[in-house]
Each structure stands twice: as structure tokens, then as C-alpha cells.
């Protein structure tokens, strides 16, 4: 082993450095993801939604809080593209403003909760012993905490951070069940031979978790995250309804939908634009999730032509 570097360098020199770099997992996964048309479409839709949410306010002369007393409950027109609501606010301005909030809350909660769950669950499962006991205790503790009460007590005191901190609070109470599942999966993975092999090759425990444990529970994590995105938007709505979270005159997709539900039949523009965007958003996230899962899992049922079993 002491002679290794010299010998290797000598051999490499004779190789003329012609060899291409072997593709790493990140690049293989990216390539597989990009080869998945619906996943790319989903990603494009999410990107377009972001563009709409952040460029939209600059396209219209109305701000989300402006009130046009000359047009109450008026339908879509050149003056108000998506119409106005019952007090004369511009629906387009409000919807894009709400979309900003909901996109960020949804994605942030989905990603943060899942990442937290993966970290806690994988560490508890892989290390076992006292780490496991401590982390499981914390998980169970948070699980029995009345999250609604905690958020309602804490959020009024967080004037500075506002809805961003609110999103983190939602994430804080959204990871426990996932973490418990990840923990049990990690316990069985820990005994698998490839994890043992990595340990005997002097791969550090945190690297083993990142390289072997988490990718092998990724399918579950991704499905969980895509569901969490949708439910985060809805639970934000529920909390906002009770006066926590996003407060008027500020809006989110959730509050817009809640306000517009009653008028869905009589004044459809108040409801359907916001609801439609939410559906499009959740759908796009699901497509991205599916694509990512297939890209990470090489045994996924999708078969691409030209890639047969190696002989």
C-alpha cells in the first residue's frame, strides 16, 4: 500500500490521461433526470410559477392592497386582468402575491421537514444506542406536542421574522412521523453487506449515512416531501384562518382560496385562479418528485431503449 501512489502515477502517465472521468452518481442521476420528459416539464412549470410570482407584481399597475372602488366584483377585463374581488382589489395582483408566499412556504416546509426527518431518522437508526434513544425521545416528544397551540402561542411573538419563521415552525412540526419510518429503514440498512463493506473500507459514519443510507430511503423521502409540499400550503391556510401566519392585508394562496370559496359559483374568477395555480403547483412538484425518484432508483420500472443488461 505504501507503494501505491508512485505505481499509480507511473501507470497513469503511460495512460496518456486519455480516460474520461468516470461519471459520479450526481452526474448519472442528473442525466437520468433530464432524460425524463415529464419531470423536466414539471421543473419548468415550477420555474414558470416562480417567474409569475416574482415578476407578476411588476406587470400590473395594481398592488395587492389597492382598492378600486369603481370596480367591485367585476369580471376579468383589460383593466383588471383576472377581475376584482368584492371590495375591489385586483385578483391578479393578489394571486401573484399569494403565490409568492405559498411557493416558498410549500417548498421550504417540504424540503426542510424531509431533510430534518432524513437526518434524525438516519442518525438514530445507523448509530443506535444512546443516540437512538435520545433522538427517538425528542421525536416522540414533538409528536405529542400540540403543534397548533405551540404555533399559535409562538407566532404572534415573532413580529420580525414574519411568515418565513412561520414556515420554519410548520416544518418543525412536520417531520416526526417520517423520521420514525426512516429510522426503522436505516436499522435494517445498517445490517446490509454494502454498509458493512463501507465501514470496513474506513468510510466515516456520516459519509455512510449520506452516501448509502439516505439514497436507499430516497424513494420514500421524495414521495413524503411531495405530499408535504401540498399539505404545508393547506395547513398554512388553516392557521391563517385562525389568525396566525399570513395576516391581512397580506395574502397567500390559501387565504385567497378560503375567501373565494363562497363565491366559486357566482364569481368564479375570485376562486379558480388561485385554486388552479395551487393545483398546478402541487402537480408540478409531484412530477419533479417522480422524476427524481426514478433518477435515483436505477431499478425503477421505466426502461429506456438501448440499455440492456450488460453481458
Amino acid at each position: 500500500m505504501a507503494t501505491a501512489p508512485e505505481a499509480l502515477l507511473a501507470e497513469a502517465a503511460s495512460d496518456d490521461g486519455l480516460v474520461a472521468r468516470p461519471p459520479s452518481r450526481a452526474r448519472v442521476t442528473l442525466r437520468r433526470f433530464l432524460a425524463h420528459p415529464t419531470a423536466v416539464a414539471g421543473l419548468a412549470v415550477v420555474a414558470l410559477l416562480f417567474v409569475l410570482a416574482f415578476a407578476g407584481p411588476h406587470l400590473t399597475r395594481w398592488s395587492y392592497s389597492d382598492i378600486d372602488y369603481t370596480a367591485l366584483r367585476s369580471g376579468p377585463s383589460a383593466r383588471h386582468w383576472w377581475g376584482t374581488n368584492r371590495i375591489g382589489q385586483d385578483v391578479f395582483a393578489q394571486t401573484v402575491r399569494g403565490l409568492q408566499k405559498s411557493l416558498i412556504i410549500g417548498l421550504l416546509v417540504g424540503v426542510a421537514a424531509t431533510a430534518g426527518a432524513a437526518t434524525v431518522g438516519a442518525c438514530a437508526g445507523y448509530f443506535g444506542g444512546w443516540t437512538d434513544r435520545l433522538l427517538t425521545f425528542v421525536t416522540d416528544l414533538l409528536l405529542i406536542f400540540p403543534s397548533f397551540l405551540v404555533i399559535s402561542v409562538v407566532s404572534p411573538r415573532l413580529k420580525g421574522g414574519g411568515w418565513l419563521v412561520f414556515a420554519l415552525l410548520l416544518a418543525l412540526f412536520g417531520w416526526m412521523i417520517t423520521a420514525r419510518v426512516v429510522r426503522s429503514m436505516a436499522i435494517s440498512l445498517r445490517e446490509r453487506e454494502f454498509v458493512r463493506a463501507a465501514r470496513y473500507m474506513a468510510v466515516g459514519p456520516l459519509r455512510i449515512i449520506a452516501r448509502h443510507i439516505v439514497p436507499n430511503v430516497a424513494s420514500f423521502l421524495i414521495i413524503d416531501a411531495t405530499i408535504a409540499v401540498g399539505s404545508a400550503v393547506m395547513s398554512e391556510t388553516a392557521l391563517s384562518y385562525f389568525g396566525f401566519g399570513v395576516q391581512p392585508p397580506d395574502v397567500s394562496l390559501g387565504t385567497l382560496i378560503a375567501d373565494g370559496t363562497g363565491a366559486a359559483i357566482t364569481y368564479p374568477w375570485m376562486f379558480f385562479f388561485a385554486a388552479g395555480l395551487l393545483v398546478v403547483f402541487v402537480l408540478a412538484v409531484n412530477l419533479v418528485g417522480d422524476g427524481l425518484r426514478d433518477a435515483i432508483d436505477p431499478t425503477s420500472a421505466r426502461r429506456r431503449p438501448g440499455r440492456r443488461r450488460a453481458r
Partner: protein
Amino acid sequence: MNDPVLDISGLTVDFGGVPAVRGVDLHLGRGEVLGLVGESGSGKSVTALAAMGLLPAAAHVGGSVRLDGAELVGAGDKALSRVRGNRVAMVFQDPLSAFTPVYRIGDQIVEAIRTHQDLSREKAAARAVELLDLVGIPEPRLRAAAFPHEFSGGMRQRAMIAMAVANNPDVLLADEPTTALDVTVQAQILDVLRTARRETGAALLLVSHDLGVIAGMADRVAVMYAGRIVETAPVDALFAAPRMPYTLGLIGAVPRLDADAEGRLEPLVPIPGAPPAPGALPPGCAFAPRCPLAEDRCRETEPLLTAAGRAGKATHPAGAADPAHLAACVRAEEVGALRPLDVFPVPGTDGALRKAGPGGGRPVADDVLRVTDLARTFPLLKGAIVKRRVGSVHAVDGVDLDIRAGEVLGLVGESGSGKSTTLFEILELRPPERGSVEVLGRSVEGLTRRDARALRAGVQIVFQDPMASLDPRLPVGDIVAEPLRAQHADRALVARRVPELLRRVGLEPAHADRFPHEFSGGQRQRIGIARALAVDPRLLILDEPVSALDVSVQAGILNLLLRLRAELGLAYLFVSHDLSVVRHVADRVGVMYLGRTVETGAVAEVFARPLHPYTQALLSAVPLPDPVRERARTRILLPGDPPSPTSRPSGCPFRSRCQVFAALDPGRKERCTTQAPALAPQGGDHTAACHFPAERAVL
């Protein structure tokens, strides 16, 4: 051939359009033993199950299976039920799943009897006890009341045979009856099968992948490949002069326990490639893509199974027309005169590489591994909330090993002998419970983290199951690079090293972006070896590296290991339950029994002059793939199963099964019962842990 009792003709089975069996003809004469050989996926088990009508409804069965002239294919469930277990009985591979766990063994045999015979419950019970006695179960009256889980694997297989012969069947189908068993237990079970056949006079269809088992048991052999019979012949003719290149390759690929006349071992002959996937068969002969003798006509039409040797009489007198010797090969006459090495080229220098001869002695070099008196016990805990220790499992209880640089030590023993625990104790690099472990000249006591990391670069492991030991979610390039990255190698080095390693083990560097599931079993094991070689280790620990592979693929891996060892000067700790493989690969051998080393020495010496009675029994139990020699051998049959490692008997742990102890007079027995024998030198570096070592030729 007399009137066949079981006549299978044109049998086809397909599962959802994918053919598993493609036109099989088999004739089983009364009282005859027919061996059905083939690799995994060749359709041999499906053939046996189809004969019994036991395939799932999704399978589409065609052709005909006649039992004494009565058609079984397409027969109703009622008609089949009258036949199954009565006139045709089956012995399955896995006896645990073949018994209902909640009923007593005796009751299950009684049920089998009373389903087909009009017998009172008492009489049937008495018959069940008789049957259990016949298959060699001690205290049959007591054991009949036991549940399946209370039986060991070997005992369950005996009970299974008892159940199969309960109604004096005409035909016994045995599907890999000994594959899940240890070699000494396998010898017992084969013996029981012989007894059962003698008692009932049944014909036996023995399905197996093990040519040694077939050579010892069968009268005639049929070889299956890709769902068809490719050769069938009387056992002696088949082994002496096979006429199908595939059969020739199979025989050449099996490592043998016995040496040839000059005391040398023949190089193993791997068959290139892998069997075709059932859905994607090549046109023409299914074996043509792997066959070095293939001609254009082989790729056009599939050859029929015909009596060979008609045209070859003049050129090859030994292969004179024999109506019983059929082969599906257009060049059958030529093949009959060839030896495996003539047909299958051994790639590169693989064949020329021989390990140091018996006279060569041990290399003068440093120890890369020295283990003295290693022990490891696992606590047996009881209780749900407060766990209390109720006993200990002595998994490893006194193991001594030493390997010098460039040397190969084979570690053999049956399951439960503590081989794997020994490996893992060494690899953990932590101070052992008892004894000492020195790796690359360093004691594992008081290693810092940095030291341990450096030490791990010198010792790498290859696991048994190549699928389980490769992360399914990592591309092969990353898998191979992992040990390099763990040693903080820089990126450029990794980028250069990975293609080089893949080439070295015989894989395409361009396959680095594929995932493990895209490779065949043999290729996966090559990936595992490439990974282990990445950091240029000095010692490679091989944990049953070929036991999950088919013989033809196994030969390729063994040759690769031999070549790598010669090229890189590696030392191997080669753990295996298969003595033939150890004989082929190792320089020295250590035999383990119940967590202890019982005999060590040079391979040629230990295999030729085994001194410990356990080694003798082990060697004598391994079947030779040579019908003439196999049938001429006398076999030492060990009674019973290894005792549980939870109890540590006083004195010699082997004495409960020892053939030498049984023959001793009471005065000398005393020594075995009170004193545990230590490993003592027996001349040269041959050591054995026995009070009364006596030489005995067993091969």
C-alpha cells in the same frame, strides 16, 4: 431400457410467453436413478414441478407427462391428488417451508399416509414411527411428536424423505435435496435417499446443480441448458466422454478435491459469458454464443437430441454408437474425443499459473495476519423489559491463524463453525474479547483512528453475495472508487484508477456508469473484487466469494483470483465451506469446528494426510465429480448434527460425533472427555487438535 414408469415427452412450460422449458423428453425406468443437471435458470426445477402438476396457474404447460401410461398434463386436480404423494412423491430443497409449522412431524406423516391408504390412526402412527426410524432419526417415537422448528435442517430433510416414501411411491422427485445443507449432512441425506430407494424400489429423479452428487447417485444423467435437454447418457459415459461442449465445460469448470495422476491440479475451465435470458434466446443452438466450437450452422437451427457417434465410429472408437448416449450438438462426434481444456481456452495466462508446489514450503515473508486464541461470545438474553443474560453463544472459541505476505490461507468449516464471526472480529480492528489479532504486523490494541484508517487500506474484503454487498443505488464507478475516497485519494487519481481496475478484473471501463443490477452475478462479483483492489491492499479477505455463483461462472472468478494474486502478490484469507474450491486456491488450510481451529497445514499435506477425525470426515463427505472414483470410495458418515454452540462441553468438543472416539477403549476415552486437545504440531507445520491423531486416506 425397461418400460418407463415416468415418461415425459415434449414438455413445454412458459410463464406469460417467456419459455422456461422448451420441449423436454425424459424417460424414467422402473427403479432407475436419473440425474437432471443444469445451472440456475436452466429449467430443471420447473421440469420436476411440472411433472407433479405443481406449477402455479400462470404457467402454461404443454406436451405430455405419463405415469405408467396415464396422462398427467391437463388432468384434473382430483386425479392429480390421487397420484401426488401416493405414486409420485416429492422431496423439496427447503424442508423448513415444506412442513406446516403448526403440526407435529408425526401427524403430518400420518396425514400423508391416511390420505392415500385406508389405515386406522394408530396403525398409521406406528407406520410413521417406523418411517422415521428408517430415515435414521434417533428416538423416532419421541421425535414424531416434535414440531418442524425443533428439527435441524438435516433432520427435517430426513423427515421429508420419510413422508415422501410413506406410500411406497413408484417415482420420487428430489429437487436439490441437499443444496441447503452442510457437506457432512449432505452425505447423510444422500445415504438416506439410497436407503429409501432400496426399501421402496422407487425410481428417483434427482435434480441437482452439483455434478459430484449426480456422479455418486445417478444411473443416467440428463443435462439441461436454456430449457432443453442438451445431452443424456449413462453416468459413466457422460463423465468420461461428454459429447456436448456445454457438458464438457461444466465438467471442466468444477474444482476437484482429488488431484490427477501426477498430483497436480488441472486448471479450471470457465465457460465464457452467461446463460441467455429466457425471453431472449438466440436463434439456433442456445449455447452457440458461448461455444468456442460454434459454426455457422449452429446459429441457424437448433440441433436435435440424437444418438451421436454414428458417423464417428471410424475416427473415434471409444464413442461408438450408443443408443443411450444422446447429444444435441452438430459436432458431437468430435467433442467426444476432446478434453475441456481443448475446447475452452483459458484466457490469458490463467491456466499457466500454478500456486507454489507442495515442496515449495512457505514463503519467507512477514506475517500479514496473525490471530492467536481469538474468542468471541454473544450473550443470550431473555426478558422483554429487563434483559437478563441466560447464557452465551461461544461463536468463536480459540482460533489461530497466520498468513504470510503472498500466501493464501483457506478457512473451512460447516455453517455455525464461526468462520464469518472470525472474519468480522478481525475486520472490526478492535481489541478482541480474548486472544490477540495482529494485522500487517500491528496489534489492534490501542489503535488511533488515523492508524485504523491506514490499516484498513491494507486489508480489504470481498463478500459472499455480490448483490447485497454493492449499493444498488450507486453506479459501478462510484462503488469501485469508494475505498479510494475513504483514503482521501485525489480526484485525478480516482479518475485514472477506476477504469484501470475495471479492466483488470475483466470488465469494460465504459460500464462505470451502470448500476449493479445491470450486471450478471459473476460480473457483480468482479466489481466487488475491483473495489477491494482499489487501494492496493496486501491482504484480501474473501468470504465465500463463489458460493453464490454457478459453476461455470465460479471457475472464471477463481481463475481471476489466482491471476491477481500472482500479479499483485496478494495474500488471501479465503473462507469457504467448499473444500474443492479451497484445495484449488489455497496454499494452506485451517479447518474449524465449533469455533475452534482443529487442524492446519499445507493444503496438499492436509488433504492427502488428514489427521483430525473431523477433517477426515469432511473430506470424505465431499462428492467427487467422477462416477468411478466416487463409487469406489468408503465414506465416513458423521452421526447427528454439530452440537449447539451455547453449551461448551468439557473435553474435546468433537467427541460426540467422532468416529475415532467411538472406537476407543474406555480408558483412553477418559482423556477425550476430560481434556480439550490443543493444536499440536504433527510434523512440519501440520498441526491438529486431537489426542489420537491417526492418518487415514479418504480421497
